[in-house]
């Protein structure tokens, strides 16, 4: 019995130790080396290096490795449990409520980008879903032809002409860039609850953050499984998909899909939203 427990514990310990060493390595790499720059005479290699926009690749790959471990051990299992224990109707209701709670931030960003038409749609969605949709549980606005879209401050910064900066992979949060990190902070600052203290508000914020994380990861179970199973280099696939997708989101191009990710920081292969 004890022996069994010991053998079971061993892989866990070594995993933790490995994680620690990787974290250390990530720090070292981050402080020290950048990606090896290609031979400047090889114009195609230089062009590819620029197109990938990933001068911090060694650090990012280490961060991706850490993220992958955390995701396998914690995030994905949590999302699986969320899916198993809550019926689809409840999960859809939660998704709708979260989307509705986010509408004010989308509205502010619509306005900051000078998108009056989209701002009107966002306002209409909030009014309809909050009332007829009973606090956002049902997405009745879509039935009225008011289709949802996303906006975040990262996109607003891009519209204002802020440079993207080098590609970043952040454990737990996923692919990003300095601009999207700043945008994420901006969105938090736009949320009125950020400035209200008190235990109740804190509890609401924590619940909302947790629910958003579970909902997001649950929607990504299959796409990420698929990338892990079929991509010859998941890191490169996610980097490419995320960056392409942000460009489309910033331009507000119709993608033939419904409104998508709630976060400026995401997998870049986010599931479709209702």
């Amino acid at each position, binding site marked *: 019995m004890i022996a069994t427990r010991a053998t079971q514990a061993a892989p866990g310990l070594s995993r933790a130790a490995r994680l620690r060493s990787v974290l250390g390595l990530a720090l070292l790499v981050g402080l020290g080396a950048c990606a090896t720059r290609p031979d400047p005479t090889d114009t195609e290699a230089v062009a590819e290096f620029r197109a990938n926009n990933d001068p911090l690749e060694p650090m990012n790959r280490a961060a991706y490795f850490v993220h992958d471990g955390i995701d396998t051990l914690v995030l994905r299992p949590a999302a699986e449990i969320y899916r198993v224990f809550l019926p689809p109707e409840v999960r859809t209701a939660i998704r709708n409520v979260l989307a509705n709670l986010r509408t004010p931030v989308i509205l502010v960003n619509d306005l900051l980008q000078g998108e009056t038409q989209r701002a009107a749609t966002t306002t209409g969605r909030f009014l309809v879903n909050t009332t007829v949709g009973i606090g956002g549980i049902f997405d009745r606005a879509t039935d009225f032809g008011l289709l949802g879209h996303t906006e975040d401050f990262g996109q607003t910064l891009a519209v204002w002409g802020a440079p993207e900066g080098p590609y970043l992979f952040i454990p737990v949060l996923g692919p990003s860039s300095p601009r999207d990190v700043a945008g994420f902070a901006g969105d938090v600052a736009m949320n009125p609850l950020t400035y209200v203290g008190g235990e109740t508000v804190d509890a609401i914020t924590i619940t909302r953050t947790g629910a958003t994380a579970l909902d997001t990861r649950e929607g990504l179970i299959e796409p990420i499984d698929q990338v892990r199973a079929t991509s010859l280099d998941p890191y490169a696939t996610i980097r490419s998909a995320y960056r392409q997708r942000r460009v489309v989101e910033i331009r507000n*191009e119709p993608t033939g899909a419904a409104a998508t990710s709630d976060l400026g920081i995401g997998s870049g292969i986010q*599931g479709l939203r209702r």
Partner: protein
Amino acid sequence: MTVTARRTLILGTLGGSLGLLSPAGGARAQQMEPQRAANFIRTTGQELVAAINADGPVPQRRDRVGAILRQAVDVQGVGRFILGRWWRTANAQQQQEYLRLFEEVLIRNLSSRFGEYQGLTFSLGRSQSRTEEDVLVSTIVERAGSPAFGLDWRVAEVGGQPRVVDVIAEGTSLRLTTRSEYSSVITRNGNNVQALLGAMRQQITQLAAREGT
């Protein structure tokens, strides 16, 4: 599984398998008529859906899907685009082998997921827009009980025939994503094209194993 997740899954894999596509670069002088491209996509889509939903053993359906893809997709041009700068560093034998593996990956990606695609229907979306080199045809893919999702097809004229050169799922071009993936594999293996071929062979083995389950 939620509707959303399912939708994403289908989208991701359809894109993943059909989307490894593109122009060979260069000779694309002829203009494609949007209506012709749309008709071509409608026909090809219907053939593909019929083949996937057909009765019969998987190998038989896979052969049929393979025949449709070979006809509809500019496999050579897309394959070359994706290999990009490494095409010239590969020797003739590696180029041949790469194109053969590329086609096989394309087909196996679809055939390993026949079960999930059962009951799929397919219709043309509202817009067809012409770009400089090709036409973008938007389509709507539906399954019973699932909301529709959009998939955009890039169609170019190759050798006088309309051919699919890219699939765009939610703003993500699969030919660009795959190019980045393949190039990364080669670069990280000491700029060795042979490493990519080995990885592709392994991938085909894995996909074939999934098909069996």
